[in-house]
């Protein structure tokens, strides 16, 4: 009864086709989304209202709150690139980060997340940012520089001093822990 009015069944089917979620999970995600700002998000999505939650709200979710890359995640998945998310973006994000998503898809988005300056390459500055976020600036500059060099040495196949998507995928698909750690259960 109540749940049926949020989405039409066509919408639900479409969402199920476009994400790795079941009907129930989509509804649960909607409620999670709505709980972030009940006054902004209507309970009726059949008319596809144009609602966008600001990054501050998205980033405060317990699932993302402690993630050092939360801002990047929100930016990558939001349509405007600033971290403000519509429900579609929200579903998209958790679909990619769900357990069911295949390795390639995850690798693609991981690449985008670690590519801080959006230039389609992970260059040294991106790596430095990643490392500093990962260790909360606990490493010295020398150490960071060294690790950056090492990473680029290891993974850069075409030797252009930065990691392209192929380099990154080649490296990440062999990582034993990538699949188990690059997901958020919601």
């Amino acid at each position: 009864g109540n749940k049926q009015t949020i989405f039409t069944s066509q919408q639900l089917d479409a969402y199920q086709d476009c994400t790795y979620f079941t009907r129930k999970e989509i509804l649960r995600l909607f409620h999670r989304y709505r709980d972030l700002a009940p006054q902004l998000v209507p309970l009726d999505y059949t008319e596809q209202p144009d609602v966008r939650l600001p990054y501050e709200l998205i980033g405060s979710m317990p699932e993302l709150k402690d993630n050092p890359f939360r801002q990047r995640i929100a930016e990558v998945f939001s349509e405007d690139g600033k971290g403000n998310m519509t429900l579609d973006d929200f579903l998209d994000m958790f679909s990619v980060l769900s357990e069911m998503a295949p390795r390639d898809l995850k690798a693609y988005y991981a690449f985008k997340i670690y590519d801080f300056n959006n230039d389609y390459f992970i260059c040294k500055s991106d790596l430095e940012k990643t490392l500093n976020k990962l260790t909360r600036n606990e490493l010295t500059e020398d150490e960071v520089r060294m690790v950056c060099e090492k990473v680029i040495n290891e993974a850069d196949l075409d030797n252009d001093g930065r990691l392209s998507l192929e380099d990154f995928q080649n490296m990440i698909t062999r990582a034993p822990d990538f699949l188990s750690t690059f997901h958020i259960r919601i």
Partner: protein
Amino acid sequence: MVIFSRFTSSWKHLRYFSIEVDEGNDNEFNLYYVGVEDHSEGEKEQQVKQEGKRRRERNGKISGRTASEKRSAVTKNSDKREKKHDKHQKTARERRGSKTHEKRRKRNNADEEVVEEECSKEKNVKNERTKTSKLEDEKEQGGKKNKKKSVKTEDVDRNHGKMKPRDCNDVPTKEKTKNRKKLETISEPESKSDSESDLESRDDKAVGVLSSLTPEELEMLKEAMEEKKKLMATLRGKPWPMKKKLIILRESQEFLEKYEGALGKGKGRKLYAYKVVMMKKWMKFQRDFENFKTACIPWEMKIKEIESHFGSSVASYFIFLRWMYGINMILFGLTFGLVMVPEALMGKPYGTLPRKTVPREEEASAMNFAVLWDFGGYAKYSVLFYGYYNNQRAIGWLKFRMPLSYFLVGVGTVAYSYMVVIRTMARNANEEGGGDDTIFNFSWKAFTSWDYLIGNPETADNKFASITTSIKEAIVEDQESRKDDNIHLTRFLRVLANFLVLCCLAGSGYLIYFVVRRSQKFALVGLEKYGWWERNEVNMVMSLLGMFCPMLFDVISTLENYHPRIALQWQLGRIFALFLGNLYTFIIALMDAIQLKRAEEDIVKTNMTIWQANLYNGTVPDNSTAPPITVHPADVPRGPCWETMVGQEFVRLIISDTMTTYITLLIGDFFRAVLVRFLNNCWCWDLEYGFPSYSEFDVSGNVLGLIFNQGMIWMGAFYAPCLPALNLFRLHVSMYLQCWAVMCCNVPQERVFKASGSNNFYMAMLLVILFLSTLPAIYTIVSIPPSFDCGPFSGKSRMFDVIQETLETDFPAWFGMVFSYASNPGLVLPFLLLLVLALYYLQSTSKTYKRVNMELKKKLQVQNEENKKKNKLAALKAASELEQATNAVGKHSNTDSDLGMNENDNSLNETQQHRQKGQKSRYVHPSQGQHNKDPHPISSTHTTTRPPASRSRAVPGHLPGNPQQPQRNSHSNRR
């Protein structure tokens, strides 16, 4: 990359197709709408509505397109071009009203698109952008089609002098629809002159439409539909924003709806439509089933909560627990459904046979709680244990073969467990892939060490710290091989530690053996004279050892100074050895007990004959034909029934193990947490961060406990069918209890280890345990004759004789013959030999594959390094050549061709690119070379100096070009 390229190609296909359809049959599709809606007045309104709907969709598409225009410049240009074309087209159509131009226009469009495609390919540097632009091209096409339709209807209106405003469509009147319908039917012959049959039967318009297609086009249509379907199935795996996915989904659905109903010919059409409908129903069912299945997975939210608090390693224990629960559910289903329930329902009721009755001397205490808790009394003489089952071959109206079922269920549980464990192991091994190579050590540390599941600040802090230390360690390790100061001391300490551990193991083994022997003495005298401790001594000692020895090992392992990960493995190995030793001591002691019981049984047997003789002699002295005397079954003397004894022992073991686990949980975790929390206010040091602090969740210890628990189940399940049920209960309770304990009184681990790598480690342990626990069970089944007066196999010399018996009595004679032939050593031995050979062959091939894999990996690595070296050289060379080139501008062609052969070198190309831009020659990136087979038409110097075939080559390591070029020679010399 693979996805992208495959996907692009599929779209290319589609585009090609849709052009084809547009060319020939666009009008006819319009007619189809009209034709179908000709029948009743009511439908006309529908038609109007549909028109409105279509228009809305069209608008939506156009607006979508304008939105997408912002995104890429490429499409913007093409869009403009197209608009221009449309205008041009409109006027042209007004003048001529013929179709030929339209065709040309479309061909133009097609050409244009080819050009566009090439343009977009030029922008191939950024894969994703190209893809989006292509998709937008595609979308445009959809929009274009609709637009064209509207253009056409307007044209027709004008042709007949009824000039209407552009948006006259917004006024939905019946008259108008009628008008248009008429007009379109009139316009039909002039637009379509080749197929007349459509006019005659309007119902089959769609069929006609399709029949007018050539077979190839039909094939194409089908192919396109397949593509669409495939796209819809894989849509969720595409890295696009949701909006785009939704739009594409809707478009493909519309496309399918539009053409699917029309496809198929004549009689086959109905069948086809039926098939389509059934497919849709099936899909829906599948989806619902999928939804149902995920809804059935228990404790998902609980585990999620733990995951977010403690990261993936702690959660992996609970996932393992859930997996175990699932397996035990199946085992329970087997034993409960095929053994316990049939015996309880169809077998003889309690009290009919001596084996189903509590003996007279135990009757008084049979209902005491202490006795029941010990699984004596009524519990012992029930379906819970082996002894209760009757050896009647078939029971009840179903003629249920009870003994056979009992035997097969016993075998089946073990077989099923093997299957599941091995399958899971294989799957894990697949997933892990080649995770052992450490060439990406730092990259993995940088990119995969954060656990995205973490949603708790404390865990996050720990994780940050552990990542920092691990990176620092890696740096130190990398900079210099570890400084091993005082290696002799470490070695000595390690040897000492191992010695201590061995002592512990031997001590615990002896303790258990001693206790078991002592308990046998007690049992001989009679347990009733002793207290609770004497009765439960064995189990208590085993549980206590299992509790304290790991702690001892932990203390000892601090001597060794290993890296924590290696230390963890040592620890696991030691605990494993301890548990295994304890279990096997227990089993050996149990074997002794079995021998004792069997000796007792022999005595009872002889006593029995005497008793029977006395019975008959005493009461019926002369008449032997009189009906036999009825003795109450409780008074009949009986054997000790060693099978029930074994089952009881295992049940007791499980119970005491469970109790100790729970009690340790309560005391070690809960009370400790309570004390630390509340005493902290009035204590002289900080309890929370000081000495006792809160406990951590011990993943490895818990997993091991679970594994051994399961081993005991496997071992004892044959003699106590209630064991899986008990275990199910235990797992269920521990799921809730441990979840609660973890959430309320544990703190996240300080050193968070990755769980995934050890998954197969645990599974391998499980497999070993499974094997080791089936060994004694099989031994007892095969070599010890069953008790003479209890259990389903009583009266047989061996338990597996039940198979023989079934073969002889329940199967036709020839089957038994075949079986006996098949089982004679002459056939079995070669078969075994064959199996061994196959095993050997498979093993050696897998070894070879592994080696080849390793070699390939090495080769790749070597090649990479070589490439890098080469690149550096080439870059130097290029720099010098650049200077030369700037000096002598006239010699473009020669130097260029020299450089052009180094297509794989990026560093070179970076320096070269400036020049190439100037010369308008096209540079082909190696990774894109496969897509761009056709060279750019304007390339000037390359075509003159080099054959075109070599340019598209993209194999790394191969240097295309003329052999006489000096640079290549220099390369090969330097190599």
